[in-house]
C-alpha cells in the first residue's frame, strides 16, 4: 500500500496544503506551511527503509493519463532519485522555518508557491514518463519565478526574467528532443508512448538525429547545472532570491540538471555522450567551472554571489564525476549532489540570517563578529569547512570519490580538478576571515544577536547530516551503488557498440 502510493502522496500532499493555505488566515500561513512540510518529510522517511538497494526502480505506479497520445502517469524511485527526493523533503520544511522572519508580505502566497514548487521538484525526480517529466520541469519553473520576482531583492524582476528565459530556452529545446524520441520510437514500433522504459528500449540507434537530440537535452540540463558558460543566470537569481528561494534553488533545482544527465542524456545517447569530442568538451567545461567558478567566487564582494559562484565550482565536480563513469566517480557525483544541497543550503541560510540582522550581504559590512555571535561563527565555520571538503565532513566523501574515480578515466583532468580544493580553501577562508574574524570595527555589528532557537532548529539537522555523511556514509553509498552500477552497465557497452 505504502509502496504504491507514497510517491503520489508526496506529489499531491503539497498541492492540497497549498490549496488549504489560500483559504487560511494570513497570520497562520507559515505555521500551516511548516506543518505541511514536516508531514511531507515524515511521509518520505519510510522510503529510506522500504527501499531495496538491489531492487532497481521501486515504489512504481503507472496509470494511463492521455491514452490517445500514450501519456502515462508513471512514477517511481531508484537509487539515484531516492536521495534527491529525500533531500527535497528535508530542505523544504527547513526553508519554511527559515523564512519565518524573512518573509513579511503576502505570506500565504509565498508559502503556497513554495509548496507547489515542492510538488514540481519531486515530480521531476520521480517521473518515468517523459511527458510527465516535461510537465513537472515546467511546473517547478513558475513558482520559482514568482518567489524570485515577488519576494526578491531590488533587481528581482531582472533576475526572475533572466532565470525564466534561460530555463525556458533550454526546456523548449528539450521538448523538441522529447517529441523526437517519441516519434522515432513510434515509427520503429508503431506504438506511441512517452514511457521512459519503453523509449529507452525502442529508440534504437539514432544516427545524426541523436546528436541533435543530445544537444537539446544538453542545453536544457547544462543551463540548470549550471555549466560554464551557461551559468550567469545563477549569481543574479541567487542574489535577488529570498533565503528560502536561494536554499531551494541551490539545494534542489541545480541538481535537476545533473539528474537529467544521469537519467536521460547518458542512457538515451550513450554513443554521443561518450564520443571523444563530447567527452573533451564536457571535461573542459567542468574543469573550467571548477577553477574559474572558484576564482571568480574568491573576488566577490557580495557573500551571496560568492556562494553562487562556488556552486558553479561544486557542480563542475559533479559533471566530471558523471562523465568519468566509474563506480566511484558516479557515486561521488551523487554524494556531491546531496552534500552541495546540505552545505550550500546551510550557507544560504546563514547568509540570510546575517542579512536579517544587518540588511547587508556585503562582506565588508562585517568583520570580527565571532566575538558577538560565537554560535553563529561556529556554525558558519563548520559549514564552510564542509563546503571545502574537510575530511570528517560530508564534503570530503563526495570530492574524494569523484576525484579518485575520475582519475581512472581522465588522470590529467582529475589532477587539475584536484587543485580546486586549494581554490575552495582560498575563497571560503578568505571570506570567513573577513566576516567573522579580524577586528570588530563597525559599531552596527557590536549588538548583533546570536542565533535564536528557531534558527538553531533550522541549522542543527543540517549539521547533523554533515557529520553523519562525513563519518558514516555507508548506508547512503550502499543504497546508491546498484543504481550507479546499472547506469554504467547500460551506458558503457552501448557507447562501445556504437563506435565499433
Amino acid at each position: 500500500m505504502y509502496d504504491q502510493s507514497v510517491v503520489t502522496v508526496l506529489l499531491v500532499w503539497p498541492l492540497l496544503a497549498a490549496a488549504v493555505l489560500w483559504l487560511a488566515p494570513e497570520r497562520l500561513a507559515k505555521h500551516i506551511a511548516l506543518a505541511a512540510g514536516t508531514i511531507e518529510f515524515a511521509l518520505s522517511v519510510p522510503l529510506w527503509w522500504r527501499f531495496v538497494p538491489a531492487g532497481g526502480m521501486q515504489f512504481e505506479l503507472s496509470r494511463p493519463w492521455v491514452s490517445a497520445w500514450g501519456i502515462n502517469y508513471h512514477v517511481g524511485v531508484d537509487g539515484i532519485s531516492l536521495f534527491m527526493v529525500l533531500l527535497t523533503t528535508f530542505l523544504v520544511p527547513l526553508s519554511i522555518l527559515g523564512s519565518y522572519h524573512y518573509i513579511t508580505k503576502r505570506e500565504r502566497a509565498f508559502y503556497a508557491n513554495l509548496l507547489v514548487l515542492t510538488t514540481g521538484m519531486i515530480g521531476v525526480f520521480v517521473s518515468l514518463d517523459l511527458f510527465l517529466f516535461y510537465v513537472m520541469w515546467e511546473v517547478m519553473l513558475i513558482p520559482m519565478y514568482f518567489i524570485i520576482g515577488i519576494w526578491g531583492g531590488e533587481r528581482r524582476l531582472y533576475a526572475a526574467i533572466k532565470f525564466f528565459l534561460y530555463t525556458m530556452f533550454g526546456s523548449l529545446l528539450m521538448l523538441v528532443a522529447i517529441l523526437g524520441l517519441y516519434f522515432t520510437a513510434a515509427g520503429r514500433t508503431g506504438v506511441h508512448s512517452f514511457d521512459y522504459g519503453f523509449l529507452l528500449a525502442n529508440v534504437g540507434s539514432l544516427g545524426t538525429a541523436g546528436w541533435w537530440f543530445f544537444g537539446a537535452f544538453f542545453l536544457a540540463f547544462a543551463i540548470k547545472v549550471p555549466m560554464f558558460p551557461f551559468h550567469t543566470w545563477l549569481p543574479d537569481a541567487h542574489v535577488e532570491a529570498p533565503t528560502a528561494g536561494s536554499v531551494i534553488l541551490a539545494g534542489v533545482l541545480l541538481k535537476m540538471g545533473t539528474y537529467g544527465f544521469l537519467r536521460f542524456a547518458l542512457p538515451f545517447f550513450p554513443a554521443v555522450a561518450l564520443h571523444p569530442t563530447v567527452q573533451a568538451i564536457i571535461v573542459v567545461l567542468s574543469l573550467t567551472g571548477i577553477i574559474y567558478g572558484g576564482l571568480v567566487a574568491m573576488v566577490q564582494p557580495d557573500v551571496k554571489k560568492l556562494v553562487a559562484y562556488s556552486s558553479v565550482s561544486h557542480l563542475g565536480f559533479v559533471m566530471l564525476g558523471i562523465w568519468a563513469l566509474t563506480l566511484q566517480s558516479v557515486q561521488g557525483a551523487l554524494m556531491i549532489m546531496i552534500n552541495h544541497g546540505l552545505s550550500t543550503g546551510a550557507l544560504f541560510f546563514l547568509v540570510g540570517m546575517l542579512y536579517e540582522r544587518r540588511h547587508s550581504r556585503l562582506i565588508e559590512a562585517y568583520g570580527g563578529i565571532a566575538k558577538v555571535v560565537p554560535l553563529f561563527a561556529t556554525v558558519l565555520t563548520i559549514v564552510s569547512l564542509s563546503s571545502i571538503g574537510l575530511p570528517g565532513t560530508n564534503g570530503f566523501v563526495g570530492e574524494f570519490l569523484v576525484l579518485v574515480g575520475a582519475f581512472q578515466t581522465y588522470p590529467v583532468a582529475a589532477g587539475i580538478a584536484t587543485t580546486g580544493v586549494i581554490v575552495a580553501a582560498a575563497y571560503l577562508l578568505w571570506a570567513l576571515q573577513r566576516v567573522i574574524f579580524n577586528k570588530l570595527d563597525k559599531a552596527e555589528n557590536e549588538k548583533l544577536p546570536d542565533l535564536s532557537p528557531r534558527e538553531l532548529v533550522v541549522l542543527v539537522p543540517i549539521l547533523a547530516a554533515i557529520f553523519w555523511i562525513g563519518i558514516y556514509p555507508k548506508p547512503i553509498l550502499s543504497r546508491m551503488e546498484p543504481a550507479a552500477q546499472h547506469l554504467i552497465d547500460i551506458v558503457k557497452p552501448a557507447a562501445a557498440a556504437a563506435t565499433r
Partner: protein
Amino acid sequence: MNLVWLVPALPLLGFLVNGTVAFVRPKTKWLVSVVGVGVLVASFGVALLVARALAQAHAEAPVVFRYWDWMPVGSLQVSYALQVDALSAVMMLVVTGVGSLIHVFSVGYMHEDEGYARYFSYLNLFVFFMLTLVLGANFPVTFVGWEGVGLCSYLLIGFWFSEKVNADAGKKAFIMNRIGDFGFMVAMFLIWQHTGSLDYTTVFAQAPTTLALGGGVATAIALFLFLGCTGKSAQIPLYTWLPDAMAGPTPVSALIHAATMVTAGVFLVARANVLFALAPIAQAVVAGVGALTALFAATIALKQWDIKRVLAYSTVSQLGYMFVGVGTGAMAAGIFHLATHAFFKALLFLGSGSVIHAMRHAYHATHAHEDAQDMRNMGGLSRFLPWTATLMWIATLAIAGIPPLAGFFSKDEILGAAFARGTTQPVWYLFWALGLGAALLTAFYMTRMMLYTFHGPNRTGAREQVHLHEAPWVMTGPLVVLGILSAAGGVLNLPALVGGHFWLHQWLEPVTAAGAALGPAPELGHRTEWLLIGVAVTVAVVGIVAAMRALDLTALVPARSAAPETGLGRLLNRKWYVDELYDAVFVRPIVWLSRNVLWRVVDVGIVDGAGVNGTAVVSRILGWLGTRLQTGELGFYVVVFVVGVVAVLARALK
C-alpha cells in the same frame, strides 16, 4: 592493544566537553583544566599500555583494528581503521607525552585569557587529529588527521582573531597546507590506481612487485606524497607559513608548530618508506630539499629579533635535517631526530613562553606598549628567570649538537647516513655538507638568541625590571621534565660506537625493513665515523664560540631606538624577501586576474554581457525591425511582396 581506540577518543571527549563549556560557561577554568589536561594524561597512560603490549607481542606485522566501513564503493574499500606498530607507537608516545607537558604548561600560560575553554577545546581536538594521523591504518584515515591538524593549526594560529595579522597567518597556513594536500590526494589516486588498495599493509606488500624500482609511477607517487610533506612540514617551497604561525599562543607553537604536527611529513615518509625506497630520484629530492631548507632557514634565523621567529626558522631548519634522514633511507635516524627535536624544541618554545610571560607581565604592570617578544628588549634575564635560563641552555646545547645531549646523537646519525650514502651516490656528499653548514649556523644563531635574551645588560627598562620573575611551577615543572629528556634523550638510540645498541633502530625494524631491503644502506668504518663526529662537534663548538666572540651585548639598544638593518643583515632579516616574492608572483596576480579579467571581463562582460544580454539586445532589435515593417502603408507592403516573389522565383529557376 584493544584499547588503542581510547588514545584518540579521550582527547576527542575532552574537545566535546570543553567545547560545550566554552559556550555554556565560558568563564569556567577549573573544569576545563581538569578535563583538558586529564584526557591527555589518560591518553598517554593508555598509549604506554598499548606500546608495552606491542613490545610483548613481538609482532612483525602491524596490528590493525577495523572499526567501520567508511567509503566502500565497489573495488575501493576504505574503512575507518587504526594500526598499532613500532612507528605509530613511537609517534603516539611522543604526541601524548610531550602533549601532556604542554597542556600542563598551558594551564599557567593561558590562565588569564578569556578564551580559556575555547583554547583547550582546540588543543584537545588537535591531539585527537594528530593521533588519528599517526595511528591511521590507511592513507585516507591518515589524511583525516592530516587535514584535521591543519584545521586546528588554523584555529589556534588565529586564536586571537581580532588582530588581522593573526587571522591572516592562520589562513595562510591553511591554504599553503592545502597546496601540499593536493599532492597527498593525487598520490592517493595513483596508489589506488596501481595497487588497488589504500591500506598500508596491502599497499606496502604489493608495491615492490607491482611498481618498478625507479619507475615513473613510483617516482610520481613519492614526489606527490612529498609535496604533501613540504606543506605540512614547512619545507621549501611551502615553508613560509610556519614563521607566521608564531602568531598563535606560544604553547601552540611548541606543540603544533615544533613538536608534533610539523613532523607529520617526516612521519609520512617513514610510514611510506617502501614507496620512497622504490623511487631513488624522489629520495634524492627529499634529502636535497631537506638539506637546502636546513641551511636556508638557518641563514634567516641569524638575523631575526623576535625570539619566537628565531625558533620558528630553527624548526624549519631542523625539519630539513629530518628529511635528509628519511630521504637518505635512514628512517630510524629521521624518527630519532623527530623525537629528540620534540623534546628540546618544545623546551625552547615553552621557555620562550616563560620569558614572554614575564616580559608581558612587566610591561603590563607599567602600562608600557613595548614588544614583549623582541630580544632587543630583553637581555640579562637569567638573573630574573634562572630556571628558564638554565633549562633553555641545555636545550640550546642539545640542538647545537654538543655531546652527550640528545640532539648530538640524532643529528650525527643523520649526517653520518648522508655521508655513507655519498660513498655510492656522490650527490649525498653535497647534502652532508649543506647539513654541516646548517649545523654551524644553528650553533651560532642559538647562542646568539641565548646571549641576547639572558645575558649582558638588561634592556627591558628600569621600572619594568622589578616585575620580571619566574613563572609559576605549573609552567616551570614541564620545562624541567623536558630538560631531562633533552639531556638524556640520546639513550633512545645510542650508537654501537659508544657501546649502545641502536635501540630505536631495532624497535623500528619491522616497519623499516621492507624499504631497507630495497636499497641497503652502505656502512662506514669506525675510523670514518669517529672522524665525522669530530668534524660535527668541532663545527658546533666553532659556532658557539664565534657567536660569543662576535656579538657585542653592550652595543645593543632596545627595539624602539634600534636603527634599521642594512646590507646582508637586512636581506636576512627580511627573510630573503620570499614572502614578497610569492605575493608578487602568485597571490596578487591571481587575485587581480580573477577580479579584473575573469569576473569583470569574462563573466560580466563577455559571457553575460555580449552572450546573454547581447542575445536579448539582438532579439529586441529584430523585434523593433519587425514593428518597423508594419507601417500600415499598402504601397510598402506591395514593394516588399514583389521583391520577395522575385527573389523566390530567381532562386527556383536557377
